[in-house]
């Protein structure tokens, strides 16, 4: 018996299926023993990753596919979201994301760029891989809320 259960899902890259994944996630996270608050946080993080795959994946709405893998461990949940769209310049993007800063004037206020930031804040560990054939976001949430750094790259080695 291995110490991880893998659940894999493939959905069309369509906005209407993000809510379905949230339902699946709530069942899985509940099994692991996460609290209501934690489950709601993970829901947001996963939705952000899937939303990015849908809106930035570079595929025409409804034509791409998104793979979501849940790695169920005793002490944590690993979620991988992978699309088959275009990659992006992570460093360039990283300089733009973050919370709202008072210095921003109302006119310049960006209307996006909060998704990756929310993922980073709400999850304990985030790893973004930019492949030739799409983007993979690997997110980890620990049961006790503390992001201990263990050798836990089982799911990532799959990507």
């Amino acid at each position, binding site marked *: 018996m291995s110490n991880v259960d893998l659940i894999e899902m493939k959905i069309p890259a369509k906005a209407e299926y*993000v*809510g379905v994944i949230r339902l699946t996630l709530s069942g899985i996270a509940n099994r692991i023993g996460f609290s209501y608050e934690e489950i709601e946080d993970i829901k947001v993080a996963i*939705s952000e990753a899937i939303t990015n795959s849908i809106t930035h994946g570079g595929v025409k709405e409804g034509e791409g596919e998104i793979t979501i893998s849940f790695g169920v461990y005793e002490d944590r949940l690993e979620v991988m979201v992978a699309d088959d769209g275009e990659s992006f310049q992570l460093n360039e993007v990283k300089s733009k994301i973050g*919370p709202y800063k008072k210095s921003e004037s109302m006119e310049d206020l*960006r*209307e996006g760029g909060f998704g990756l930031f*929310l993922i980073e804040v709400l999850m304990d560990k985030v790893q973004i891989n930019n492949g030739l054939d799409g983007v993979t976001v690997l997110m980890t949430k620990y049961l006790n809320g503390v992001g201990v750094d263990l050798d836990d790259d089982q799911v990532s080695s799959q990507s």
Partner: protein
Amino acid sequence: MELNIDIVEERNKSVVRLSGEIDVYTAPQLKEKLLPLTKMTGNEVEVDMEFVSYMDSTGLGVFISALKSSNENSSKLKMINLSDRVYRVFNITGLHEIMDLERINKVER
């Protein structure tokens, strides 16, 4: 997994009652209904979020563009009855500093 949008027009005031989830699927509908209200000069737009069970950054995007529009058109935008969950998303991103937010059973801005 849907968003219901109910709009009641009063004198110089629009009350928008939302119930359901605000995500990439429903945000476009919300934007389409909310933005025109902020374009009426002098209008007070009150968004009641008591029954919003889920919101992510796609919701923030809608409220940011509504706020910009209300600034440009001299209308007012206010979100009321925010649950802890919904408030959390505004708060983490720092947007609570520029938005007029009223939490459920808690008055803040």
